[in-house]
């Protein structure tokens, strides 16, 4: 697998959700979110949360005890209600971020996932001390929490405490076998602490050989340049350039290598090429700045936090809160496919909210078209007895090529059911009619 956008993507990981770049934040936030969700779902599926079964199978409200309901009502009183206006100014959004972090820490002091969400919010707000405190609290609850170690490592890096970051990164690598992002981050930190040999070992020996990463090539180039091994440095920078033809780091490295080799002509050629790349970068940055909307990027971070918190509450079985939090996420960011999907899931379990489930499932499929959202939409339509639309959504799910067996099974189930009920006459059991897979 090729990571053509390796450098950018991996550096996004390095700065996690905390950096100001919306793209980086979105990417990393998504990765972490998916990991959290997958972990929680996985745990649920293997029976680690049996107490959730009644809630998840039968809906939130009816299963909660009267005491729990009261507590949920009390807790939700501190959250913006459905009629609360969406904050527009950056200052108001920051204020709401502060409130959400405080709320999570107040009501869920013993929940690692809540601590992680609060820690990320603190970091977005630039409060390193509070973020560090939140992640440390999580580690006291769950010493192997990968997100807490990662958060602490990145705080250490941001504070130039590279030596302290190394053990946290090592834990992350150990807890995420096969994940290349943490490995690259660890290598970068080792380089920053001057442990070039360890970094080279990690990148040359431990890094999966089938993965080509620009960042890895850049770092190896840097290590070899530091060692004075100009031949290997050149090879690595050329590899980076092959993977990313206008990579400025590789161009800089090659200019330096050729300069040290006294090849002035080559050095000048790479410098000139670099100059053009930098000029373009500057223009893009200038345009980006012109179009930059601080409030929008902050609102996105806040929406992500509400989404995470909503999912957390859903897993905790506090449906009332989950609904409130997810609704807020959607209000802040109407194109948040994940939040729509989660809301649809919540409503699907409540017969009186089936139409809401359909609306959110449709919104999810529109915001994040894919196999998962269309599969869910198909099931939602199926639950509502809208078989034609269910069939159509199942067909769309198949078109994405992911989760193929699941989509195909649903499609067949729907067509067979339709034939049995005589509610339609599909031309064939092939979802594509012509048997041609798109």
């Amino acid at each position: 697998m090729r990571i053509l956008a390796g450098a950018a993507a991996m550096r996004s990981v390095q700065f996690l959700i905390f950096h100001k770049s919306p793209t980086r934040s979105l990417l990393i936030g998504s990765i972490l979110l998916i990991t959290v969700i997958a972990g929680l779902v996985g745990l649920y599926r293997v029976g680690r949360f049996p107490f959730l079964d009644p809630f998840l199978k039968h809906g939130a409200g009816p299963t909660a005890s009267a005491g729990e309901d009261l507590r949920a009502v009390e807790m939700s009183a501190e959250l913006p209600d459905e009629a609360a206006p969406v904050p527009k100014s950056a200052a108001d959004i920051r204020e709401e971020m502060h409130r959400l972090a405080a709320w999570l820490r107040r009501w869920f002091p013993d929940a690692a996932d809540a601590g992680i969400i609060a820690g990320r919010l603190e970091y977005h707000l630039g409060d390193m001390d509070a973020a560090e405190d939140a992640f440390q609290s999580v580690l006291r609850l769950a010493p192997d929490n990968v997100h807490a170690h990662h958060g602490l490592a990145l705080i250490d890096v941001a504070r130039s405490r590279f030596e302290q970051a190394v053990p946290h990164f090592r834990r992350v690598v150990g807890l995420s076998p096969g994940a290349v992002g943490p490995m690259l981050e660890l290598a970068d930190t080792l380089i920053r602490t001057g442990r070039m040999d360890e970094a080279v070992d990690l990148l040359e020996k431990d890094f999966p050989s089938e993965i080509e990463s620009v960042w890895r090539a850049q770092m190896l180039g840097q290590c070899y340049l530091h060692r004075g091994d100009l031949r290997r440095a050149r090879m690595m920078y050329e590899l980076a350039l092959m993977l990313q033809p206008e990579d400025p780091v590789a161009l800089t490295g090659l200019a330096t290598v050729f300069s040290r080799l006294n090849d002035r002509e080559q050095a000048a050629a790479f410098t000139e090429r670099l100059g053009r790349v930098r000029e373009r970068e500057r223009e893009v940055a200038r345009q980006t700045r012109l179009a930059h909307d601080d409030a929008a990027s902050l609102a996105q971070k806040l929406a992500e936090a509400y989404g995470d918190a909503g999912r957390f509450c859903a897993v905790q079985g506090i449906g009332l809160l989950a609904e409130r939090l997810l609704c807020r996420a959607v209000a802040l960011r109407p194109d948040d496919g994940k939040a729509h999907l989660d809301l649809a899931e919540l409503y699907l379990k409540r017969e009186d909210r089936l139409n809401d489930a359909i609306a959110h499932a449709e919104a999810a499929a529109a915001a994040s078209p894919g196999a998962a959202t269309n599969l869910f939409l198909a099931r939602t339509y199926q639950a509502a007895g809208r078989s034609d639309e269910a069939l159509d959504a199942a067909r769309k799910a198949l078109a994405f090529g992911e989760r193929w067996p699941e989509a195909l099974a649903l499609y067949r189930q729907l067509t067979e059911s339709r034939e049995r009920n005589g509610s339609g006459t599909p031309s064939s059991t092939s979802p594509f009619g012509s048997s041609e897979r798109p």
Partner: protein
Amino acid sequence: MFVIAGGCRRPTGEPSATGPIALEDVSDRVGITFRHTDGSSGRRYILEPMSAGLALFDYDGDGRIDIYFLNGAPLPGYESSTIPRNALWRNNGDGTFTDVTEQAGVGDTGFGLGVVVADYDNDGHPDIFLNNYGRNVLYHNQGDGTFEDVTEKAGVAGRDDCVGAGAIFLDIEGDGDLDLYVGNYLSFDPSRNVERMVDGMRHYPSPRDYLPIPDSLFRNDGDGKFTDISMESGIAAVAGTAMGMIAADIDGDGDTDVFVLNDVAENFLFVNDGGGRFEERAVEAGLAYNAQGEENASMGVDAADYDHDGWIDFYMTAYEDELTILYKNLGGGFFEDVTRLTDAGQGTYFHVNWGVCWADFDNDGNPDVFVANGHTEDNAELRRPATAWRVANLLLRNTGDGKFVDVSSQAGSGMRPVFASRGAAVADLDNDGDLDLVILNSREAPTIVRNDTRNDNHWVQILLEGKTANRDGVGSQVKVITGELVQLQERHAGRGYQSHWGDRLHFGLGKHTKIDRVEVRWLGGTTEVYDNLPVDRFILLRQGSSQYEVLDLPKGRLGR
């Protein structure tokens, strides 16, 4: 609008220094009443936070180092009953200073950014060049404690739309007189101000919102006039957003090269061919970017051979979310960012850093680093608690084994003032053999710091007097050898954040009680050697003379 409260000084009763370096804040005991203004009124013109540098030099030849502060000037919207001006404070030697601006005739009211001092006409008296927004100024020292504005006569006024930056005097072709390099930040017109909002708050624009412009190089014609040779020298071949700069022989070929920091852009290294023609080669030399190949918002730069390998290294300050950078000279003009390897960037990441000085505060023979901190935004703390408009400064001690340790919190009251600092400069203000500090603080009074370090270490301060080389010896290199310890320094005119200091080269000597040898490589000429010199003295070395002269400079005080 964000309300600005005053900065803070050390509360009384706090413990003094507990570390190897002891610095005492004597700001309120020296009689200096200067207060900086940036001419701001909330409109956030990009040049406001860039003001200003300062100069430490002996303007009247009495053997005591005096202080010249730059000041801002009213920008549109600014209202004040008084007109801000630069200020020259004479060192009385009794611990206090006297404002002699009017008598000396150096109270320029332009928007001050950078300053450099050198004897450009070799008459034995230091002259002042001011790099302003708008008209620059050249003050010629008349030798009687007064200066004459000779800007137009010299032809160095510059452009009205140009926001200045650092400036340096250097002898580009080794002909014995000093030429002038003038950094240009950008072209600016208040009526076309760029407005920015970040996190819903007003924010200064980026230099990238403006077009970069080339710097200027003026050749000294030797008759009091300068000729603009920016184009033919190769300097104008590239355009940047200059900030701090320094001239030094980075490749050991005997001529003077120029290292220019650019704000949010790659740095420039102008390599001299020996005849005053330059080629920009920062990328090839490893000085354009940091170790990760990223551009920095570079601010100030100073030079020293911190690891005693015989090559001049650079320490550079930068913006918030960037580390300062220590560029180690690998030899032959190739550099490596060793900030992380040496821990030289600790404590700098979250803050905007400006002034920077290499200075051996404890006289152990290893130059330490002082960094002046303070944000560009006076509401920075509202956006991000990790930093602030006013921030304490930073002191990194060179341990002598290639590492640096943050000793700020152990260095006493001198490191406790919390301001939005800009230019910083070091000199032995009380002639007691250790280096004191002066820091210009934006919108506030300056910080004056006395070095109270007590140990058994020795020192020497060397003054140069060129004959065929320029009289100040600018660009000449001095090697001081004491046993195994070989120290190298170069005489600079203009350094740090748009500031000037270092007319006397200060060497800490550790426990060595004698100097085995001093070698002077005069710019454009010979190398001269002096053996068996005393320690704890001020020594004058004249080009062409085999004898050194021990100067009897008046001992003084710093602070009542």
